[in-house]
């Protein structure tokens, strides 16, 4: 029953993910971060430190701290720590061990199996070493998959037709480009290229150098000698780089960065534009283009034969990088999944397939592509189940009648996003009849929508008074093409304002009509308890409102008159209730032969059309 986790065992950072409810999710580590530095340290007391903690002690304990061990996988290289020799497998196992522990803490169960990713260019011995590392960490490696393949899996490309995909992976300290051929469950690596000493850290360094130079130019002081200052610069440079992926200028503001020889404080206040950043780092971007060209050439493909370009690794967010690749390949990039996480997510997805979670269809829950509802007074489409609701699902709502003694209601089942029935697709209609004679608004008709796992919609209408039931089953609700669905959603967005205005008008009219009806009824019922003056006043206002209701395109006036009538009527009804003994209110309902509706029972006052 235990889950198979997916691990992106990176050179600088690692990430672990797992399938949950049909979707891969990244597991946060015990420090609360979504990625873990691939750094291992041994403290003086012999304690083993992994991740952020190991990184923090690296400076103080340099010779007992190991980073970028991945570069040595599959070689005879050994790390000597206090006379004890460690193989790259053993060091990697320590990183895997932490990821395993974090996953277990998250899942609340033991984890024994994993899918681990490796670069596409890894040789058999490097792959074997990775597998061994898993074994040492107590993980059975169910499969080793290529990082570009994992990235493509996270985008669901395995479910599409066969196609050639270029994966551009610019990580913290390594750069890889791979061209893969995906289709029919088989993935073939056509070409790989890269530079394993190029990454995001180089971009940071360029910014740091620029800040140092600018500061020296302005203040004549060299900042490089001060470790504390350089630490602040490093953080500021990385932040500036990240900012410039979203905005065109950023402010680097480090007050009291140092003091000049006379003891006066110096501040660092610089503005870095995206253009300047691009200029500073253009050689780095160019350095990634060479390998991309090389990979395309090696794959024997023409640039236009590559159907998709996936961007992986944090630094693939840099706009200049994206522009350069777009220009080179002449196509839009495939983005959307966090580039730091997509490899681990893809590995988790692969784990899900191997564990049977995905294949069994257990986790492939469907959603309703469009909203479902029924038509109510004024031609409005009242939504019962909104789009993207996971099925199976069931919803019920109570409606009422529109006219006194209405004998039947028509249930018009609709699909779509528009506010009005006529703009949506009609799925089916039926009638519930035999409603006992009653004033409008009194009968309670419960309408239920039930969509089963196959997307079949059962609509039931039940008269809660008589218990009479009528229903319809609609099997064709889901056989709309993706284009049709997209169009329906687009239309709804395009017409949203118009629809809202029209809906507002209908709502105002319905409210107005309801109120006149209630007031007239109330005057009949307890007209003897109010003075003739008050009665005339209310009747006058009812007439006013009715006159407004007759006119077209009159929403604001209707609303105003409705408010006026309501206010006047509340004042009078307040008086009437004060006169009445406490028990009388109750009696009023009983005389009507109905039960007083609970304060908030979700009854919608929009009613069915009379038939």
């Amino acid at each position, binding site marked *: 029953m235990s889950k198979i986790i997916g691990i992106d065992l990176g050179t600088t950072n690692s990430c672990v993910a797992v399938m949950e409810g049909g979707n891969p999710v990244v597991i946060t580590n015990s420090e609360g971060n979504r990625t873990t530095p691939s750094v291992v340290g041994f403290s003086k007391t012999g304690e083993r430190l992994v991740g952020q903690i190991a990184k923090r002690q690296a400076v103080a304990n340099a010779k007992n701290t190991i980073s970028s061990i991945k570069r040595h996988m599959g070689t005879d290289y050994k790390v000597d720590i206090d006379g004890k020799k460690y193989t790259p497998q053993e060091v990697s196992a320590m990183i895997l061990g932490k990821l395993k522990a974090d996953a277990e803490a998250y899942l609340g169960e033991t984890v024994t199996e994993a899918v681990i990713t490796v670069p596409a260019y890894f040789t058999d011995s490097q792959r074997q070493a990775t597998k061994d590392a898993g074994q040492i960490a107590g993980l059975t490696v169910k499969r080793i998959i290529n990082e570009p393949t994992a990235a493509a899996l996270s985008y669901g490309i395995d479910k599409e037709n066969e196609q050639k995909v270029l994966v551009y992976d610019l990580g913290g300290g390594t750069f890889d480009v791979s061209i893969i051929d995906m289709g029919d469950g088989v993935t073939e690596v056509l070409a790989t290229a890269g530079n394993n000493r190029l990454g995001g850290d180089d971009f940071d360094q360029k910014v740091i150098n620029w800040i140092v130079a600018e500061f020296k130019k302005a203040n004549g002081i060299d900042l490089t000698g001060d470790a*504390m200052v350089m630490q602040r610069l490093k953080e500021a440079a990385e932040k500036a780089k990240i900012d410039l992926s979203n905005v065109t200028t950023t402010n680097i503001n480090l007050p009291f960065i140092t003091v000049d020889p006379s003891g006066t404080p110096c501040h660092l206040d610089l503005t870095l534009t995206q253009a300047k950043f691009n200029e500073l780092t253009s050689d780095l971007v160019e350095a990634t283009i060479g390998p991309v060209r090389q990979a395309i050439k090696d794959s024997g493909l023409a640039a236009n034969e590559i159907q998709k370009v996936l961007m992986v690794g944090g630094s693939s967010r840099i706009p200049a990088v994206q522009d350069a690749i777009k220009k080179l390949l002449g196509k839009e990039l495939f983005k959307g999944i966090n580039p730091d996480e997509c490899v681990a997510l893809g590995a988790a997805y692969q784990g899900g397939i191997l564990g049977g979670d995905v294949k069994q269809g257990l986790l492939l829950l469907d959603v309703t592509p469009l909203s479902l509802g029924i038509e109510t007074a004024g031609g409005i489409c009242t939504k019962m189940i909104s789009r993207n609701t996971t099925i199976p699902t069931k919803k019920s709502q109570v409606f009422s009648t529109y006219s006194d003694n209405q004998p039947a209601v028509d249930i018009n089942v609709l699909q779509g996003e528009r506010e009005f029935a006529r703009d949506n697709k009609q799925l089916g209609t039926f009638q519930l009849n035999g409603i006992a004679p009653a004033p409008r608004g009194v009968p309670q008709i419960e309408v239920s929508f039930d969509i089963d796992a196959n997307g079949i919609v059962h609509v039931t209408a039940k008269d809660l008074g008589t218990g009479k039931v009528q229903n319809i089953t609609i099997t064709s609700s889901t056989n709309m093409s993706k284009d049709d669905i997209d169009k329906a959603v687009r239309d709804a967005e395009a017409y949203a304002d118009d629809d809202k205005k029209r809906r507002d008008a209908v709502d105002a009219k319905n409210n107005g009509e309801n109120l006149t009806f209630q007031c007239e009824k109330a005057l009949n019922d307890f007209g003897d308890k109010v003075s003739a003056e008050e009665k005339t006043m209310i009747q006058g206002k009812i007439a006013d409102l009715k006159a407004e209701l007759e006119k077209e395109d009159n929403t604001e006036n209707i609303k105003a008159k409705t408010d006026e009538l309501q206010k006047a009527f509340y004042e009078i009804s307040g008086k009437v209730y004060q006169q009445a003994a406490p028990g009388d209110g109750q009696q009023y309902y009983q005389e009507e032969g109905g039960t007083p509706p609970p304060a908030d029972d979700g009854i919608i006052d929009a009613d069915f059309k009379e038939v």
Partner: protein
Amino acid sequence: MDIENENLDETTEEIFEEEIEQEEQAVPSFQELIEAEKDKYLRLYAEFDNFRKRTVKEKTEMYNNATVDVIAELLPVLDSFERAANADSTDETYKKGVVMLLEQFKNIITKIGAVELEPLGEDFDPNFHNAIKTVETDEFESGKVCQVFQKGFKYKDKLIRPAMVGVSQ
């Protein structure tokens, strides 16, 4: 002939029986189907139950995490106030104002729950300290925090920011 016929019948029968048996093996019984569905349901339910438990935990954690994140974003301002307060200035009144500002800011984050770490002279502990340099000194034994460049803070049992320190060698 009779005997032969009987034999033939028996063989045919055997063949049929075998075929039927094979067919039966190929078609999963209702029992098996139910078992498979039950397993699916149990797995999903177990996953949901774990999800529910974790969600409850995560909800309680959310407030703490948000507090930590907000304080962490504000700390650079505190650093700058501190540097400003320690900077030389000939204008005493102005300097006093800056010191007061610093105190005011410190009081606020303390009230929210931030606790300042006081690492000086303690054993270097990467769980709370970030070493940015090593210092040759006789003042401290090796492996102690001998300089604090930037203050570290925690909130309850969470680290907001490690203290940036120098470690004695």
